[in-house]
């Protein structure tokens, strides 16, 4: 039998309130800015250390300082509407269009795969097979058909981002439970209605997992596209800088690029919070 704590009762007659708050573990209580700064400092610190100890050649890894200086340079160019801004804008367009395309295709295929046995049995294996293939093989095809404009990069970006969305959507459609399915059957819902009004909302958390991974993939896809199929985007600037062994520039460019990636990811996360409002994402022990 569970042992009682030994304080004698009655001691608390005078206690007025035992209103309490969910205990929040230290690790969860750290404010965001502090936590981020901490990681930042650790990050930059080790980077500085690696370069200061000359563990690695400066043409492989620049120092944080060099990178910062170059970021200021690049930043100025961007702010004053220099050529880099144009390049960044091209890449941003590729990312946006690519993501939109990936969402449209990935979602449709995800529904096909998640909803029909045909999709699951016959389409999915091909999707997996295609997605494991190195994209270099397709870059020439995209270029041949779509040219060197942003179209071919959009296609490649979408290509890479599609698969996670397919997997997420398909998994989401499987997550509805027995009761909900039965309920929809008794309501005489058509397959389409069951899909749209029940399975999809239920599966949204999984769909968003796919979208988040896709959001990051689309960035990689656009840059890969620019590497393989040329063009005038940010990836091209990176490539040129890399071929010139201008590593501070390479790093400063990719840091700017990662801000774009963060923005896309943040947009997806924000949408998720708005759309899946009933599914409170709760973190840590301090959840009530």
């Amino acid at each position, binding site marked *: 039998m569970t042992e009682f704590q030994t304080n004698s009762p009655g001691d608390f007659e005078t206690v007025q309130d035992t209103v309490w708050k969910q205990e929040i573990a230290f690790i969860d209580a750290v404010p965001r800015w502090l936590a981020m700064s901490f990681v930042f400092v650790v990050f930059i610190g080790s980077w500085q250390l690696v370069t200061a100890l000359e563990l690695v050649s400066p043409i492989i890894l620049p120092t944080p300082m060099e990178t910062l200086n170059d970021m200021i340079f690049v930043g100025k160019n961007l702010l004053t509407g220099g050529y880099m801004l144009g390049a960044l804008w091209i890449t941003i367009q590729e990312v946006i269009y690519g993501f939109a395309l990936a969402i449209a295709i990935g979602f449709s295929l995800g529904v096909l795969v998640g909803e029909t046995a045909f999709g699951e049995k016959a389409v999915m294996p091909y999707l997996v097979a295609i997605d494991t293939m190195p994209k270099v093989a397709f870059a020439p095809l995209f270029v041949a058909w779509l040219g060197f404009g942003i179209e071919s990069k959009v296609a490649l970006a979408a290509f890479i981002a599609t698969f996670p969305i397919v997997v997420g959507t398909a998994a989401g459609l499987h997550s509805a439970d027995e009761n909900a399915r039965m309920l929809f059957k008794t*309501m005489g819902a058509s397959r389409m209605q069951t899909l749209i009004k029940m399975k999809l909302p239920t599966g949204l958390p999984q769909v968003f997992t796919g979208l988040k991974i896709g959001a990051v993939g689309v960035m990689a896809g656009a840059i890969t596209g620019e590497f393989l199929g040329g063009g005038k985007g940010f990836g091209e600037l990176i490539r040129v800088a890399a071929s010139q062994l201008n590593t501070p520039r390479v790093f400063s460019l990719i840091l700017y690029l990662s801000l774009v990636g963060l923005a896309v990811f943040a947009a997806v996360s924000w949408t998720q919070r708005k759309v899946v409002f009933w599914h409170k994402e709760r973190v840590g022990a301090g959840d009530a």
Partner: protein
Amino acid sequence: MKPAVALEYSGAPVGAPVYDLAHVSKTYARNAVVALEDVSLTLRKGSFTSVIGSSGCGKSTLLKIMAGLIPPTKGRVVLQGVPVTGPRRDIGMMFQQATLFPWKTAVENIVLPIEIRDGKAAAKKAVEKAHQLLDVVGLKGFENVYPNELSGGMAQRASICRMLITEPAVLLLDEPFSALDELSRDMMNMELQRICREQNATAFLVTHSIQEAVILSDEIVVMKPRPGRIAEIVEVDLPRPRTLDMMTTPKFGEIVDYIRGLLDKGEDM
């Protein structure tokens, strides 16, 4: 099967047969549990039938088979002269677990069947009716609340509203009032009776409350477990409409006791 001869009989349901079950059996393939064995049953139009039986005796399974949600292993199920071979629109079903969708408010959940049957516009028009139903079940003021802010009993009541909104001709109810207090339950029983009479609906109710079964039903199907079979079908010859004060009449007590007796025996069977 012993008929309910012990009770004077008057006022059996007279409508045309709506549901016809013959020799229905169900074995769950996964664990070879025989949930139902040779269940035969006829429900007549406008009649109210209750099922009572110990936990696990196959009541929910029976309802699901009647609703065409799961196929029987053997036997015949005919509804309105048409064999049941899948879910049917003419049925309103309420499940044992209240399943409200968390992304919809109470009212949105309730008008969902209308939305599915007749589209968004119709659903919009049905909001007024949903409000009325919520009012009837004592949930006025909770129209726009999301399900996770409702108590257990409130969620159950909202589910009932969802089933009622389409005014189905046949109601299959799986312990719809289990999370309600006696008072609300009595009230809901009377409302259910009123609605069934108004719409001349045929109702089939799973319950664990003998009182509830007796006050509502024309016939009570008493089941015994493992495998689930019908022990006896008891006819309740209390006059219609039933009122709550009938519960204090000796006849009511008699029927309740008779059924309790059947259930007691069922345990050893």
